[in-house]
């Protein structure tokens, strides 16, 4: 795999605890989540059910509940939990000294 092209998006402190922010990218909106235990995850901000903005949902454990019809997604794998089926893309993210970086596909493929 080619080396990832990391893009800075801000710091942990920008995201409320048990909350999320979104990042606009050419690939669409990305939701960046912070759990009660300060884990950070990035997933596509688009619910596979009817497109709800997941970044606006309630964050509990390492999951988020979609604000439109309450599907629950794992932030780690992007998979819908329970009886619902579907998944969202997870976006590579790294944390360095409290700063957050994501890697985008377009950039990665352009660089390759």
């Amino acid at each position, binding site marked *: 795999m080619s080396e990832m092209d990391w893009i800075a*998006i801000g710091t942990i402190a920008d995201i409320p605890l048990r909350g999320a922010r979104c990042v606009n990218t050419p690939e669409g909106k990305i939701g960046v989540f912070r759990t009660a235990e300060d884990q950070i995850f990035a997933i596509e901000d688009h619910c596979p059910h009817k497109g709800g903005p997941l970044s*606006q949902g309630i964050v*509990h454990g390492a999951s988020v509940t979609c604000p439109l019809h309450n599907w629950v997604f794992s932030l780690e794998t992007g998979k819908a939990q329970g009886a619902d089926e579907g998944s969202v893309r997870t976006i590579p993210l790294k944390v360095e000294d409290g700063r957050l970086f994501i890697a985008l596909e377009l950039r990665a493929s352009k660089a390759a």
Partner: protein
Amino acid sequence: MTERLVIIGNGMAPGRMLEHLLEAAPSRYQVTIFNAEPRVNYDRIMLSPVLSGEKGYEEIIIHGDGWYIKHGITLYKGHTIVAIDRAAKTVTSDHGVTETYDKLVIATGSVPFIIPVPGNDMAGVLSYRDLDDVNAMLLAAQSRAKAVVIGGGLLGLEAAAGLQARGMDVTVLHVMPTLMERQLDPAAGYLLQRAVEARGIKVMTKANTKAIVGNGKVEGVELADGSVVPATLVVMAVGIRPNASIARDAGIETNRGIVVDNGMRTSDPDILALGECAEVGGQVYGLVAPLYEMARVAAAHLAGDQTAGFVHSDTPTKLKVTGIDLYSLGDFADGDDREEIVLRDAAAGIYKRLVLKDNRVIGTVLYGETGDGAWFNDLKKKQTDISEMRDTLIFGQAYQGGSPLDPMAAVAALADDAEICGCNGVCKGKITGTITEKGLTSLDDVRAHTKASASCGSCTGLVEQLMSLTLGDSYNPAAVQPMCKCTDLGHDDVRRLIKAKGLKTIPEVMQELQWKSSCGCAKCRPALNYYLVCDWPDEYADDYQSRFINERVHANIQKDGTYSVVPRMWGGVTNSSELRAIADVVDKFEIPMVKVTGGQRIDMLGIRKEDLPAVWSDLGKAGFVSGHAYAKGLRTVKTCVGSDWCRFGTQDSTGLGIRIEKFMWGSWTPAKVKMAVSGCPRNCAEATCKDIGVICVDSGFEIHFAGAAGLDIKGTEVLGLVKTEDEALEVIVALTQMYREQGRYLERIYKWAKRVGIAEIKRQILDDADMRTAYYERFVFSQKFAQVDPWSERVSGMDKHEFHPMASVGFAEAAE
């Protein structure tokens, strides 16, 4: 030939390294140490007991002067190395001593991080790192005045406990919502805060330091909200930075710390680094266990064994404050591929959590009882498969067999004078006493004899639990529907226990009521948040992260992710300037859809989230406030034109509607509340299908409630007739408050009324004047905190993060 070994820094890491080296190769090196601190090697970890007075400095010395003499080691105390000359292989101290080395070891430890705020260099501002800091604190403590410790981590809390033991009045300021958030999950953080506060130390979380204020000498700490916490001593304990500067200046590779390979070798083959200043495998360390591992490896290499390599292992964290037991180890974050086992014993203040992955322990947080920490650590290290003992694992090593968790523990732990039935003021002791005394066996008997749960019935679950407790297995309570999968308790039990036990935060509820998850779920968190807002209006800080998006951003999310905005139009009445302002906003923000709602007001749809504050700002200037069209709270009060205009009108229905809406707006309720006032029984405002409605008649006001016109259709019930507008308002307010206090989250009034019974509601609201007044007054009190326009708050900058993307990245970067 002896080689010359020079060591910079004389802390715990090189001290341990020398012990290993003297054993493995006793006469290989001529050793010289430079130490900026003017003293021998002592146990830095034990500074806290020295501060609190439990130990003296002499007791924590590791190597006394005699040790250095015995091993022929030269120790330059109070000498700071200022330069390394790698070509000449020398180091030079600030006192001008130059020493030549064959091998050099850098062990300069860390420097405390000082937050960059004005006044941080004032007299009276200290850090917590060495004996000099402790001595300075002890001197300041003689005043027995006020101290502030900035930082609620391990170091900060130990400093606070020490200063408090020395008689100071201590406040801890912590920027995060819970203490020691790196080592503890929020549940354990809550217990820790309670224990710290119980010893008289004040704790302020989410406290952001803006400046240290004073006149040459510290007088206080100013927070971001402008308030000042007075103090004559400020201790900063907010973190440490590896002390890598002399290595960096000498051109040795550094990153966060001095970069070493797993043999502790820096980029210069003759120079080693270890301790907190060293970075190995991309990690720096701040606890001694891994530093001792580095010491072992460095000594082996110096003794000629090139095979030794550093192995990472997680180190448990413990807090050295007498009387507080906590233990945290490894990775305890939630995850999809992980399972957790939680044990809470509210009465004993115990919280234990194990995080498992593939049937192996990967992390644990223990509070209150940490005896099994070592065992869990062992299971983790050995990666033991625990599937065989999964059911009893959390009870610890000594536990054999065992019963499941007791769902009645919370009720069993209640004091005898804890109130169980709010309506009739019956406490626990009365109920259990009467059961035994009179030999009662059925719920109806208990109701008849004690009146407990005989009124609104919301405490039935608790009364039944008390019967089970008192009567044992012979009593079989009806099953209660649990609130969600995080608890066995139903909504009513949770509500009663919040009151009875005085629970005032979400973590507190979860701990005391023995929640089975660490952080709740999207079902229980919003419910708990509402219950706490309702029960403790003046004390509870609303947790917005536990609210659904609409209430969090005070607008309604639409299917495409845009929002709709509905300003209040009191009683459905408007005028030309309001309409003009709305028209201007619609033009300015190119709002695609404007719609008249069923609740007699105007809805603007399709607004981008980023535009919301600007839209509100313009609406606010025209005098509009939020219509709470998104809220589980008071929505609209529809009116007809009534006696002012209509030829059939009997009363001023418009005026009454506006009065009700102005009195009650902003209040949160279990589910939405829609009202209407019609000026005569022709009922043009459709008051008879509302949550609460008024039909005006010649003789006064007929109060209706419990209607529905949504998924269910249901005509209202008549509560009763009152003569004056004042009475009508009082009755409506009292009724709403009763519903606020008893309704289950998301339960509309008509469902609540069906559960409680129309007759009981009539009795409490119409017949019992005292109860009515009490409900009314509690509502009025709560409105003091609720009637704040959320829009104008957000126009002034509150929750800014909600309305803007964190970043926009990856778009046409042509310059690249």
